[in-house]
């Protein structure tokens, strides 16, 4: 019996089918960038908890933003571009200026805003404060370990964080 030659399946249209699927996925793909500022909220307040210890006024950098996005830092008008410089000066004061912070561990930055303050203003100020902390930590890391902060090991990072803890307090806006 003569064996019939097996007919080859034409694979030419496979590419078309694959293209069709490809285009579908191309269209539905959303390369969503998921960037953001990380923040840990303070735990809910327990009513039986003793009130927090009073912090000396000179150890608090008071930032107030009103409903028109105008900002006061320590009762002086300020712009977003000044925030980082002022924050760095405040945190790294180490008691030099008697009106500023005693040392970085004690330095607290307090943000007060009203309900009408815009989100972008808040994020901008917040971002600048984090930038200030990152700057200081980077400088300290380079000085102590000769490497930038994010190249350090976990233990070293912790040491740097302990030296310059990020203390940003927010109070509820009064309405």
């Amino acid at each position, binding site marked *: 019996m003569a064996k019939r030659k097996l007919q080859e399946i034409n*694979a*030419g249209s*496979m*590419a078309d089918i*694959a*293209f069709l*699927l*490809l285009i579908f*996925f*191309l269209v*539905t*793909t*959303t*390369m*969503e*960038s*998921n*960037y*953001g*500022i*990380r*923040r*840990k*909220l*303070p*735990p*809910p307040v327990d009513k039986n908890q003793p009130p927090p210890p009073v912090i000396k006024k000179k150890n608090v950098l008071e930032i107030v933003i009103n409903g028109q996005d105008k900002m006061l830092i320590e009762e002086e008008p300020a712009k*977003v*571009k000044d925030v980082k410089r002022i924050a760095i000066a405040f945190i790294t004061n180490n008691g030099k200026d008697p009106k500023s912070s005693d040392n970085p561990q004690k330095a607290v930055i307090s943000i007060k*805003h*009203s*309900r*009408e*303050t*815009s*989100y*972008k*203003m*808040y*994020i*901008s100020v*917040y*971002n*600048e404060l*984090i*930038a200030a902390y*990152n700057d200081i930590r980077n400088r300290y890391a380079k000085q102590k370990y000769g490497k930038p902060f994010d190249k350090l090991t976990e233990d070293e990072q912790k040491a740097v964080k302990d030296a310059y803890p990020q203390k940003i307090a927010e109070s*509820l*806006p009064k*309405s």
Partner: protein
Amino acid sequence: MSKFSKKKDSGTPAISTASLPDIVFMLLFFFMVATVMRENGERKVTVRMPSADQVKKIEKKGLVSFIYVGTPIKKYQTKYGKEPRIQLDDAFANVSDVGPFVLKERAAKREEEKPLMITSIKADENVGMGIITDIKEELRKVNALKVNYSTRKGEVFSNFKR
């Protein structure tokens, strides 16, 4: 004449397209893997996030619950007005719905994943801080303390140029 016809026979052979499907499949698989099917249906509020540069990337997308805040899109403005609203999943919500929403999300996760969960607030740059503060208070009540303010990557000063 035969001289020419001979030449025709030995012309350059056609390029084989047999490997074309393979290439296309490779691309296809890449996009299949990279695609995130948006589970939260349609976006009902317009969100234009502010920019910031001290940002971190969220790695585990599965552990993030999103809260959208912004003005309703045109279609819904007659019904919901132009004031900023919260969108959870694919519906408008009130501030008081935020807590139950986070608890529901948390209940769906495995036990060891629960402490790693992050709530991401995607808010429009022009919404007031009042609504954001209310959301944060709700989150504190249900102990969802890890918060991420979603932003675009960029200079903060560009927030005020427009």
